[in-house]
């Protein structure tokens, strides 16, 4: 297969899901005629018709709320939230219902909520949020974030096939990453991958920060520093065995995400490493993330977000420790 962008890989994954399972429905703001503001749903309405791929009124809470009823009626809804910053109006439906409905009734809730997330796209306010920690903390949900086109394809297949609700975070700044993908490869939810092997320091990343971590690893190599990059793929459940396995080699860890560090999901990762890996750790875990301030105007986003330099510095500190 030709190399495809992540945007295209997600489009293909949706297309295959629609083709293989009549109960899959795709809807949201501008996903039909327009094919989505990022063209992720491009052409799907044309192929599958307006009863399976449709535009909704502008109302995120209802977009998620109707999913519950659609599931009870036998559908598998795959709604899109247009941007990360517009998932908040749907927070109650997600936390009070999507996450809890099975616990309440015994009825499984195969709902996959797609959310383009993260910064680095030069956008205005509310278009560059990283709200994953809110959902990872919400029992009843599964939360995933692919970093590559191939994983995006496969992970979305797993999410849609999963009988439980999944928040599917798409690193929108990586929509144009390209690679050849193998649509037969399976990526189960809950399994991290080693994006690059290394021996010096473990770098835990997900979504948009994976490629930054990989860039850092390349740069570090020149200084004879070896970084092992873990791409979590799944935040909840979290694949601790893979992280600890890496730690057994490196004894040092860095966690990188775009969200502000304070109270962010990096805290969970670091706390778990520091607990389960207490005897393995030879240096404090550095958490690298957005500043503890609201996402800034676009001009400043590069300074606000993690970058290669901050990872390299953290690696130096970790390696020099003790």
């Amino acid at each position: 297969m030709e190399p495809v962008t992540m945007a295209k890989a997600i489009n293909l994954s949706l297309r295959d899901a629609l083709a293989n399972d009549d109960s899959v429905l795709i809807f949201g703001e501008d996903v039909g005629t327009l094919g989505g503001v990022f063209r992720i749903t491009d052409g799907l309405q044309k192929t599958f018709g307006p009863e399976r791929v449709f535009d909704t009124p502008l109302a995120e809470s209802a977009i998620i709320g109707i999913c519950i009823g659609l599931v009870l009626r036998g559908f598998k809804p795959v709604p899109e939230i247009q941007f990360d910053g517009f998932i908040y109006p749907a927070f109650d439906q997600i936390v009070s219902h999507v996450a809890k409905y099975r616990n309440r009734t015994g009825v499984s809730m195969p709902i996959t909520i797609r959310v383009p997330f993260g910064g680095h796209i030069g956008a205005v306010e509310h278009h560059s949020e990283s709200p994953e920690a809110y959902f990872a903390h919400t029992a009843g949900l599964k939360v995933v974030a692919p970093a590559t086109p191939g994983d995006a394809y496969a992970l979305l297949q797993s999410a849609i096939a999963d009988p439980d609700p999944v928040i599917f975070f798409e690193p929108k700044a990586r929509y144009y990453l390209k690679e050849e993908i193998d649509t037969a490869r399976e990526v189960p939810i809950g399994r991290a991958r080693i994006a690059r092997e290394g021996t010096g320091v473990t770098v835990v990343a997900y979504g948009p920060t994976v490629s930054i971590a990989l860039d850092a690893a390349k740069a570090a190599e020149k200084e004879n520093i070896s970084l092992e990059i873990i791409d979590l793929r799944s935040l909840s459940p979290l694949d601790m065995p893979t992280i600890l396995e890496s730690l057994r080699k490196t004894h040092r860890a860095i966690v990188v995400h775009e969200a502000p560090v304070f109270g962010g999901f990096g805290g969970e990762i670091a706390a778990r490493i520091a607990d389960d890996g207490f005897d393995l750790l030879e240096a404090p875990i550095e958490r690298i993330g957005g500043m503890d301030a609201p996402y800034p105007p676009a001009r400043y986003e590069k300074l606000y977000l993690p970058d290669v330099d901050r990872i390299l510095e953290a690696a130096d500190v970790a390696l020099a420790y003790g």
Partner: protein
Amino acid sequence: MADVVQVAPADDPVRPLFSPAGELTAEARATLGLSPDALRDLYHKMVWIRRTDQEALNLQRQGELGLWGPYQGQEAIHVGTVAALRETDWIFPSYREFGMGMCRGIDPAEMLKLFRGVSHGPWDPRTYHFAPLVIPVASQVPHGVGFAMGSRFKHSDDVVLSTFGDGATSKGDWHEAMNFAGVFQAPVIFLCQNNHWAISVPLAKQTAGSIAERAQGYGFPGIRIDGNDVLGIFAAIRTAAERARRGGGPYLIEAMTYRMGPHTTSDDPTRYRTNVELERWSAKDPIPRFRQWLEGQGLLDEAALAAINREVEAKVETMRNRLRATTAPAPGEAIFGRVYQHPSDSFLEEREEFESSLESN
């Protein structure tokens, strides 16, 4: 501008059945087509669910239930609604529709587990086409609309009954759901049980407008009717449901009634409302009203009444006994058992640890 002016559909078969004040017309009442048995059954069910409500209050006082939310005064709505629907039509209730659930055939002793604090949802909604009682106000309204949209996609003629209180109409979710219903022409009947109070907040502080009239703004009709007349409820719901089945789209029914009891057993209504109001509404109590009507029609005599009361007492007795005998699931199952269909290893480990820590204590 005329190019975009939209008006509520002219097709409104419900309105002709009612006077402008929302009373079922004598003519409509005479042509409902309900058999004497069916009419008596409506009465029987109202008595049954009221007695059950009282019993639940007692059980709460005795500590058998943690909380109870009485629906006294709203029985005509509970009973008339279920009677007017097909069994395969789904009902999406709020939290006060215990009586509706009973009419749908759910064992009240099982349902009470919710108020006993042993289950968040003690029945399978798919068995009874009765969604779980939902506590965050108005949040269930989009669920019903989603179901109804799905019915349309499946070309099914099942309709949805979505019910909520007057307070619920202030919530964003209510509005978003109403608007979706209009846009997607979803076969859903919205039933507002306007009982004049949202805990301590009276209707006049809840909204300055008319709830029924809001339907027009969403492109479908609405009507305000007497919510204490079981036959009026029956007629309105059945007619609106038939219209929805035919593809006529949503309908909003605002049924005016009164919450005769406290909001819940945690509430003390003497702090915010007067007895005068309660007395005024007692005069419109749906049960004696319907009894008198049945008696007037010669459909109910002393013997029948006594038989109903005996039967109801027996059912309540059964419920009480069954409730006391109901079991609660084991803690591991209750806390972890239904969260995920495909739980992760770490989740299962947490459950195991939890269960073994219980054993060791």
